[in-house]
């Protein structure tokens, strides 16, 4: 058997992106953004959508947290906990690449 790929763990230096098989798309009929993946379609809330949109393959998790904290006028620490947990969950489902 080939060497096992490893589970990615989110850090502030991770640079998340959406893998090729995941795409965010506006659905005019339902007037909502859908996240399309091989078997499932997700309907993220505004905050989740904001995080996913910043997973552009250039910004670090630290950048994303700072940006969200500024936009939502929230404490960086509180934002950090939520963002890291969210990205870890999505990474574990292979919906976000780190």
């Amino acid at each position, binding site marked *: 058997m080939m060497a096992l790929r490893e589970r990615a763990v989110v850090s502030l230096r991770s640079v998340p992106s959406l893998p090729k098989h995941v795409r965010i798309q506006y659905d005019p009929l339902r007037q909502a953004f859908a996240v399309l993946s091989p078997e499932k*379609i997700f309907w993220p809330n505004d905050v989740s959508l904001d995080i996913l949109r910043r997973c552009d393959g250039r910004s670090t998790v630290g950048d994303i947290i700072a940006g969200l904290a500024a936009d939502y006028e929230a404490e960086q620490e509180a934002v950090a906990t939520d963002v890291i947990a969210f990205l870890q969950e999505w990474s*574990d489902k292979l919906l976000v690449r780190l």
Partner: protein
Amino acid sequence: MSTPLLPPIGMLAELTHRCPLQCPYCSNPLELLKANRELDTETWLALFSEAADLGVLQVHLSGGEPTLRRDLEQLIAGLAGRGVYTNLITAGVGIVEGRIEAFAEAGLDHLQLSFQGARPATTDRIGNHKGAHEKKLETARRARAAGLPLTINAPIHRHNIEEVPEFIDLALSLGAERLEIANVQYAGWALTNRDQLMPEREAVDRQAEIVAEAQERLAGIINIDFVTPDYFAIYPKPCMGGWARDAFMVTPDGTVLPCHAAQTIPSLSFERFEPRRLSSIWADSPAFNAFRGTDWMQEPCRGCERREIDWGGCRCQAMAIAGDAAATDPACAKSPIHARMAMLIDEAKRIATVPSREEAFVYRRIGAVTESA
């Protein structure tokens, strides 16, 4: 109607019933359609366009073997042009060089490749196709090289249930993002071959442990979806996520169905795309409305707190085993005839272990069966 009518999200397009494999659990109907009954390119494209208008976001291109359609690239491009997520479900045997690359170029989002066994001998025997395993490995390599995300689909039954750990290794070695360990559902050809395919209880329990352990160990490395075997269940599966609730399928001749096996319910009749429009079939077809929502339910479903979780389970399984498509799926422990499932498991074991009956599959092919078992 107790539930508001929502637009469909997903669609399964069975582009053809032609297939190089003859798996004895094929989900196609026993009466297979020949090539001359298939919709032409323009009609499929018109259907896909209507589906997108109706709200479909994801189309699974299946068969038979969908790559036998020479216009598959065009069909993929048509869907991609409408922003529809495309998933190609293939046996991966006999795809000529350059075509997988052409699918990717046309905008294919994802490829699902079936393996009948984790071992070459098993794959070749179950599909009744010599050399199939090697060709599938090559298809997987070409899909990865073309940059396509990959799911490995493993239909599980008595003759390969011990290969589950090897399926996991296989999917990892092929670089798949996803593995489906999908226990065979007993409708159509699988119902005909049920006694030969039904696994034994000990093997099912072992399989559940192996999958649960692998799901945990491989989190973030590969997604493993486990489709559990109905006959061993406590609760039924919400078949299709509820009858005509958010998905439908289309057969090679354009007949629009709420699920694969819906044509086994004799009281229902189904309509075809052109002359009928998809939107009117979705909203008004008596067959689609027959089991939509919860109003059709009898007890114990009607008063059950899980009625909008399980949606009564599978209508076709209720038809096949209870003889009533509106009955509770017998897979449910609350079904008055749930005990029959255990009897069928025991009966299958008794028959399958008679040496002369071992692997006496009725392989899937045109004319193999004249009437349903």
